């Protein structure tokens, strides 16, 4: 089976979708001729023409707002916000328009759009190229929020998102674009070509939205993670020797609560890891759900490891990033509790 980077997998998902359905259009800043600053749309304009893949003005509310209009017409726009940090001008269009169009019109108009955006830090991007705003989307009724952690899933989830009849936020952990980064920033990253999840089948396949994956089976503690933190958690488990069960949520909304509850009921302990800031982060929702559903099986408080409640700093990037050492400490403390 061919191996692809996450960038190539995402590009392949759009390529396959555009090839199968001429209603799929792709646009965003630098997306057309150049193929995107991360090259996710490279070659799509040459292959499908300027009507199907084109450059947009630097205007995120315009990109999302026009995509909503296109979706109301009957197209299936898959747009790129160059960095998740740039999505705020589009937030009004996403939350009050895309998310509610089906509901408020009782299905008269719908909004099948996908909004892709690179998320997370680890590339010395400072406070405006490193954010993880997933909780700002999961809090909104009417959106779906997806965070893939590997090329195989990225392709299958993106095709599923494009085929989904409702608006989907597709957050791409940019530190995973070229390999399964585990937080050890001082070591070279294994390329996806040497990782089994870098195997990406040709052609069409989907990974269903709303289904988690168990990345490591274990019995001592459940780790709930997504995106880059899946590999950080794996490194922490290996380095501490703790028999952790690591669940890659893949989709935050709809959430695979059954998978979470089954695992925590088995292990009796839970550590939640995300790169986004702690307070009111998605970990708070996960923690509440675990408490509500697994309280009588819990043997330790639910722990959260997250980005500190500061803007993402530049020079102190690795002090901010919740790396394997911090996750490892949380695993040990949860087992000792």
């Amino acid at each position, binding site marked *: 089976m061919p191996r692809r980077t996450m960038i190539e997998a995402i590009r392949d998902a759009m390529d396959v979708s555009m090839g199968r359905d001429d209603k799929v259009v792709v646009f965003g800043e630098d997306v057309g001729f150049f193929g995107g600053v991360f090259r996710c749309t490279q070659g799509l304009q040459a292959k499908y023409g300027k009507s199907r893949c084109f450059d947009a003005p630097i205007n995120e*509310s315009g990109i999302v*707002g026009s995509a909503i209009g296109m979706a*109301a017409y009957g197209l299936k726009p898959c747009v790129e916000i160059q960095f998740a940090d740039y999505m705020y001008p589009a937030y009004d269009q996403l939350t009050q328009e895309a998310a509610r169009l089906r509901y408020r019109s009782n*299905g*008269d108009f719908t909004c099948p759009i996908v909004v892709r955006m690179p998320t997370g830090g680890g590339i010395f991007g400072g406070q405006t190229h490193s954010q993880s705003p997933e909780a700002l989307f999961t809090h909104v009724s009417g959106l779906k929020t997806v965070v893939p952690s590997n090329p195989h899933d990225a392709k299958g989830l993106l095709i599923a998102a494009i085929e989904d*009849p409702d608006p989907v936020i597709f957050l791409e952990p940019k530190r995973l674009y070229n390999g399964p980064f585990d937080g050890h920033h001082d070591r070279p990253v294994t390329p996806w070509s040497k990782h089994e999840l870098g195997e990406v089948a040709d052609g069409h396949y989907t990974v269903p939205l709303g289904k988690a994956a168990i990345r490591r089976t274990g019995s001592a503690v459940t780790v709930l993670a997504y995106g880059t933190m899946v590999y950080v958690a794996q490194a922490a488990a290996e380095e501490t020797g703790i028999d952790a069960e690591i669940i890659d949520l893949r989709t935050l*909304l709809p959430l695979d609560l059954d998978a979470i509850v089954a695992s925590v009921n088995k292990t009796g302990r839970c550590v939640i890891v995300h790169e986004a800031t702690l307070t009111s982060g998605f970990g708070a929702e996960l923690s509440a759900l675990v408490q509500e559903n697994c309280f009588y099986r819990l043997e330790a408080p639910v722990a959260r490891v997250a980005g500190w409640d500061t803007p993402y700093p530049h020079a102190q990037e690795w002090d901010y990033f919740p790396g394997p050492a911090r996750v490892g400490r949380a695993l040990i403390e949860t087992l000792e509790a």
Partner: protein
Amino acid sequence: MADDGMLHFHVPEPEVRPGGTPDFSNVTIAAAGSVPRPDIAVDPRTIRDMAFSIIRVLNRDGEAVGPWAGLLSNEELLQGLRHMMTLRTFDARMQMAQRQGKTSFYMQHLGEEAVSCAFRKALQPGDMNFPTYRQAGLLIADDYPMVTMMNQIYSNEADPLKGRQLPIMYSSKEHGFFSISGNLATQYIQAVGWAMASAISNDTKIAAAWIGDGSTAESDFHSALVFASTYKAPVVLNVVNNQWAISTFQGIARGGSGTFAARGLGFGIPSLRVDGNDYLAVHAVAKWAAERARKNLGPTLVEYVTYRAGAHSSSDDPSAYRPKTESDAWPLGDPIVRLKNHLIGLGVWSHERHAQAEAEILDTVIAAQKEAESHGTLHAGGKPSTRDMFEGLYAEMPPHLRRQRQQAGV
């Protein structure tokens, strides 16, 4: 401004406040028939002055004059008059129903009926409007059932939107009427996107965007003009300047640009101003703009100069911020009276027939109201179910919503 070495902060003020004498002497109004009608393929740079004039067809004697006249038959004009009268009667009844507690909220069109009623007749089936809350004439003039509008206003058991939306936030794809958000200006760029999609699909349909003078200050207005200009989208960009954004006079949104139409000039978009209380002028300009869009000539910006004679909404009291007699002093008159006088002048209408039509329309509206009320009003009779509240957010209900619906006991 005093040259005293200090900076001075400028806040624009309307000419007159409550207690003062209304004065529109600063509003320059071109004579009817005086503004030329350019070819639709005109170079926008050669018609920049049209953003500062006012296209008018009906003169003070009620005659249709000049190059924008002559597009509509007497039958079509009579039909247009009936649409405007219906909208006004509908508004009066629904405004009263709101006061009677049958719904929570209402917004009327008083004085602005010509804009949406005449515009609708310039479009073709399949075209899509992205309206604000004051374009119900688009539905009335397309023969959308009044009962259905009332069911929505009452949020009753027959409300097509299942009680989820504020009154008057209608939606009808079939009638080319995009779901109203209530969230100002967002629909403007969506209209451009819809038009882009039509062009991408090599379709023949066009879009119409709608916004009020106040909301042109929103960044979505700028987004829409950038995208429409860049991609030459087949869209008519409508700005309804009714002088007042709730209590804020139009100078606060307009700033130093002179007119709202002038906003389009920097984007290279042909930008026209039209007498919004002149049914014939609105229709003629709309037709010109729609034809440009359909011929791949791109967007047109149209500012309809009108006056909001009523309150902003059922929650508003204009006497707190403008003279009570200001609407009487408005120099462009009343759209219904003007078209009525024009038709009388043509010999196809009379005061008697007008009074008779008013009575007939009132009967029709009351009959529709009775039927709607048989399905319930906001606080009485049939209403959408609690279950409806949970339905229809996603194509397929996700597990967490299903759990919440169970918790709610439905």
